[in-house]
């Protein structure tokens, strides 16, 4: 199920939060209601950590991670690094990396098995991603945009990409990532998917401007609905299929 919420009247919740299968990070500031929505959905299953990165609230866009590890930009302070190391589960490797492209969340899109990265990322960073996150790395663009982390939201079960992604690109990316992909929007037509929503294998959160149509696409591609989508098709098969050739 996908939940709608906002951060201080801002529907770009993917900027102020980060969700993986192992943990969730939320920005400080903003009202308690933002934090409490996460607590009520995820509480007990995975830790919800309040933090800042480099003294800012844009935690979702500055870091990249999955259940195996978390990568932080070089601008992260020592206290923040220590706080994260303490708060996150022990199996999560927290690493601060020296990369000139410091908005790692905008440059790297990853799930637990594979990552798409900005084409200009350092070789060293790519190696660290392979080590820390335990993923296979592909340098790609999405609909001609190099900020792959911004224009796609990825989980182990599916992915949502920029609405102008061509069919060929979708096929290619889907083959690389080995998950079904859909080109769509979030927050009432916004193309910046990763800013508007966060997702893991069990749940997802979207900005409150997200329309019902967008929400149903998200629930379908990330397989968040309680019932299997194929059940509906099987039941309706008789009325859908007119005749067999």
């Amino acid at each position, binding site marked *: 199920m996908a939940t709608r919420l*906002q951060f*201080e*009247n*801002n*529907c*770009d919740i993917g900027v102020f939060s980060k969700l993986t299968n192992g943990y969730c990070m939320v920005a400080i500031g903003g*009202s308690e*209601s933002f934090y409490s929505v996460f607590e009520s959905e995820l509480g007990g299953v995975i830790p919800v950590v309040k933090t800042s990165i480099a003294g800012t609230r844009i935690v979702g866009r500055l870091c990249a991670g999955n259940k195996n590890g978390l990568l932080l930009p070089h601008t992260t302070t020592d206290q923040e690094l220590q706080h994260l190391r303490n708060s996150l589960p022990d199996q999560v490797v927290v690493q601060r990396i020296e990369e000139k492209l410091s908005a790692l969340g905008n440059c790297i899109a990853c799930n637990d098995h594979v990552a798409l990265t900005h084409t200009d990322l350092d070789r060293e960073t790519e190696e660290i991603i392979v080590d820390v996150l335990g993923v296979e790395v592909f340098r790609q663009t999405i609909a001609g945009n190099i900020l792959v982390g911004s224009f796609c939201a990825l989980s182990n079960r599916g992915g949502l990409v920029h609405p102008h992604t061509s069919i060929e690109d979708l096929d290619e990316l889907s083959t690389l990532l080995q998950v079904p992909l859909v080109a769509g929007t979030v927050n*009432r*037509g*916004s193309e910046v998917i990763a800013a508007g929503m966060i997702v893991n294998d069990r749940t997802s959160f979207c900005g*409150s*401007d997200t329309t019902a149509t967008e929400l149903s696409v998200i629930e379908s591609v990330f397989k968040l609905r309680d019932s299997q989508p194929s059940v509906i098709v099987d039941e309706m098969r008789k009325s859908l299929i007119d005749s067999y050739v």
Partner: protein
Amino acid sequence: MWEQQFSKFDGGAASRTILPQKTIQNFFHETLIFAHQREPSQSVPPSRNRRSSTSPQLFSVFEMPRKPRRKQRPKSWPVTFSPFARALARMASVSKPNRRSKSIESSEKPTRSSTSNGSSKHTLEERPEGSESSDGEFDGVVQADFAFFDPKPNDFHGVKTLLQTYLDVEEWDLSGFADLILEQTTVGTVVKVEDDEDEGVFALATALNLWRYREQRCIMKLKEFLLLKASQEKGVGDQLRLLLGERAHNVGLLVSQRVVNLPPQLLPHLYDSLFNEVSWATEDEPTEDLRNSFQFKHYIILSKIYKHKNAEQQKRKRSDDREEEIVYVKPEDEIFHELSSWSFCFPLRTQQPAPHELKNYRSMGLIMTVEADKIPTFRQQLTSLINEG
């Protein structure tokens, strides 16, 4: 998205993305005027669709002399924040007021009988010299054509961004409020750049009748917010309650938001178009209720100012008082403030880092109310303020 708005004005590099570079600018300019200017003798149908949102027609009210200025070098280069603002400041100092007023007289005056269907187009030329553009062909002359449009549902994101801090940090139905503004197409103006694929919204002006929309969640929350802020001030609380309650039939919320460095030359036209629309709506609306809903007697304005931190500024003995008590973010607020029936300030919870010049100031919210019959005075004073500034 807010960053995106700012970056559009941040120097030559970003201005490349929004402003088409017209190398044959004179030609283009003249043909544009020729193609779109309406003849005064043309008869206009009685039902005025002020502007069709799909194909705005244009008339050039504001012509800047072009050829001579290509060779001119400005004498003084005012120090302002961005190359764009610098260019505009230069242009303001160089432009000749006489020629400008002549061109206004010769072109269409926005009177009721001859106003075309369409938006007003205001052509401003800038010369961002020393811009950071790496484009070799960039000859330093960039044209920004601002056009006024009716609000359209497409403008949702731009309008919402402009209204982000309207009620400080309150969580309220901001999307609903933006939708409300966009639905009211008869009164309301959105300023965009002509032929901009991004359709970025640079400014917004509208007037909402507080009685007509009293049931809307966003308006109810807004009224609560205003009353809460007024409760800390003696005296004005009751007046505000009256205006928001019994007298709401004739009270309009004047919403005017823009990007920080929008050229001030647009402001008189923006407000003219808004107040003209209000008076036309009192005649053109289909039902009597709607017609009456635009007979505003009072306008409420919610705005932001910078107030000096030390209240003892008044005791300064020096005559050259460099530091003023209040710095108005929007120039027209000063005039509204003077003409207001009453007003008060309240502290804002969001404290943005102030630019160096404003380090002694604190940003505060300002709520004031202006009577509708003071509007003509306001329009005059605004025109003279912008022309002299």
